[in-house]
């Protein structure tokens, strides 16, 4: 690339950088600024520098820790279940059968519904008096309290699985389609069983796709808000209080935006660490391959 091309490149990039600085850089910088101030929308005349006080305050804020734990359980449970189910479905859908595309389209549908509508749907589907799911389970002798203290978080995980497994299927299916056919033919000629092919060929070859899919789903699952908002509002007690719902309460119900910003930064830090770890694993595996 010549000197002139590079200069042109920089000039072409400039407007985009300005835009990014405006719509991303400024809000992030502002959020960082208010996380060090007791910034409350209803008391703007009393805003003052408080240093790290709001971050330290999080240490003895039991709700914050409960919310963090709930979120980690939610993300872990949802993503693992979605991966297992998604993998099984993707392998099934990869099978060449008549009407294959129709099956694929049907399986993908839940993904196209807005999460808030899914939340409201399940709020009534799982309602003990009005819902069809308890009505169908009752003849089998099962009386499940879906939103009681024991199961509420699990119910939310299952709703997430219902809605987002299709995304996992989509990724994995794309990965399966893109795999080279030669190793599989060779394995079959050598007399490998289906299980051996899955274990020693499909899964290792699919690993980068799996990791990317898990990463994307994980980042998404951290933002869980709609189901909580539509169904439990964080209850019973604090059993389903997730970190984003907690941030919403502090920021937009109590208007303590400074404290909410501090929490957001800790959340961002946790996510960043997880991403780095995942990338590290991904790189190592590539080195082996």
């Amino acid at each position: 690339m010549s000197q002139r091309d590079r200069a042109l490149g920089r000039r072409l990039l400039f407007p985009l950088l300005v835009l990014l600085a405006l719509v991303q850089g400024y809000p992030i910088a502002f959020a960082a600024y208010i996380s060090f101030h007791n910034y409350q929308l209803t008391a703007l005349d009393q805003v003052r520098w408080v240093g790290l006080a709001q971050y330290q305050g999080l240490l003895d804020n039991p709700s914050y820790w409960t919310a963090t734990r709930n979120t980690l359980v939610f993300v872990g449970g949802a993503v693992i279940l979605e991966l297992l189910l998604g993998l099984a479905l993707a392998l099934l859908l990869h099978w060449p059968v008549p009407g294959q595309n129709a099956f694929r389209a049907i399986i993908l549908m839940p993904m196209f519904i807005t999460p808030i509508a899914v939340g409201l749907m399940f709020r009534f589907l799982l309602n003990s008096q009005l819902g069809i799911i308890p009505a169908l389970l009752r003849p089998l002798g099962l009386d499940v309290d879906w939103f009681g203290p024991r199961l509420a978080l699990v119910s939310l995980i299952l709703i997430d699985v219902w809605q987002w497994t299709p995304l996992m299927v989509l990724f994995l299916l794309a990965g399966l389609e893109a795999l080279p056919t030669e190793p599989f033919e060779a394995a079959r000629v050598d007399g490998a069983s289906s299980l051996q092919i899955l274990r020693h060929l499909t899964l290792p070859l699919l690993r980068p796709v799996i990791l990317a899919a898990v990463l994307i789903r994980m980042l998404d699952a951290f933002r869980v808000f709609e189901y909580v908002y539509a169904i439990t509002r964080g209850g019973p007690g604090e059993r389903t209080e997730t970190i984003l719902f907690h941030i919403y309460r502090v920021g937009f119900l109590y208007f303590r935006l400074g404290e909410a910003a501090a929490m957001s930064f800790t959340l961002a830090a946790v996510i960043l660490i997880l991403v780095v770890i995942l990338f590290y694993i991904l790189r190592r595996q590539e080195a082996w391959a």
Partner: protein
Amino acid sequence: MFRFIGRLLMALALIGLGLAGCRPATPAPVTLTIIMEQVPDTDVIQKLLPDFEKENPGIRVTIDAMPYDAMRDKILASFMAPKATYDVIIVDNPWMDEFVAGNFLEPLDSRIQTTPDYDFEDFVRPVREIGVVGGKVYGVPFYNYALGLIVRQDLFDDPAYREAYQKAYGQPLAPPTTLEEYVRIAQFFKEQSGGKIYGAAMQPQRGYKVFEEWKNWLYAAGGNLMDEGGNVILDRPEAVQALNLYIKMYQTVAPPNSLNWGFDEALRSMAAGESATMMSYNWMLPTLNNPQGPAGALAGKFALYEVPGGKAVLGAWHWAIPHNAPNKDASWRFISWITSKAVEKQRVILGGAPVRVSAMKDPEVWQKGFGQAYYETVLKILEDAEPLARGPKAEEIIQVVGTELNAAVAGEKTAEQALKDAADQVRKIQGQ
């Protein structure tokens, strides 16, 4: 969070730009934009608007109706803008002190005094007083949502039920006036119907709902959130007793697994004939008794009473003018018109929830509205009612108390522990 803040800032900037660009400099014709909630009471206002615009040719009114949860941040964004988006806002009672503390609202005293025949004292006192902060009036009442006890009157009138109750308890079957009676009657209904009808459709959903329902129980047990000196008394024995009774009620007679129920579910359960009583907003009664409404064939069989103990939780919406509204005179013209005695009467006849004593005592309202008994009961409810919480931190107090109550009903904590934790948190919030 960054996204939220970013969006908020952009919205503010856009609002600022938009307003700077398009507001006409001359006072007339003026368009008033009003933020409101998507509820039946807003539809009633919509119906009255043509009359207002006829009487005030220089003023057009646009109503921006939205769900409750969207309102608080929109109103706040409007406060922060150089010129308000909304000329008139409605304020829910937990927000009133907070908005006044932030200097967001215009005092209305001098406008009220100079408006002929306004008769501000005619608004029921407890409702009126929500809009008074530090001796000044910042909001005038729009409609009330005080709680009452809604029951299936046909069950109370059923001879078989009456006889069985008399036999078992040696008293006539009548709407309960104490908590113990309420629990007993609710349990009686469930047993007598062979478990087909639950004694009470309750609303123990975390946060606002459970606190709104339980505080009626707290009043009936002689307790309160704070005493008159502002000290938190939520951990006193009366409160523990009220919560234990509430939990007993939930465990024995409420529909099973209804821990996350709010008022939609409770209303549905009543309308479907599955529950015999519920504590809910007094204006749910006309909804249930409407033959075209959700209750269908059961319509007409419901009746409204005061909650056991007589003192009820009061909720109310108030009209207010933002401090940064550009056309305050026109804003007040609208508010004073819609809350005037004459228009209040029309509004209540159209189905709006009343706030003026004169409207509730008006025979024409009784006849064209929902009958004398209903308005007299509503007036009695309103005269002895108190909001959930007051002060600039009301919203947060309601949320934390509602979390602890819900945990206690879920069996996560004892009533005593939950109330102690709630009281500690409220003290901490107040100290901040």
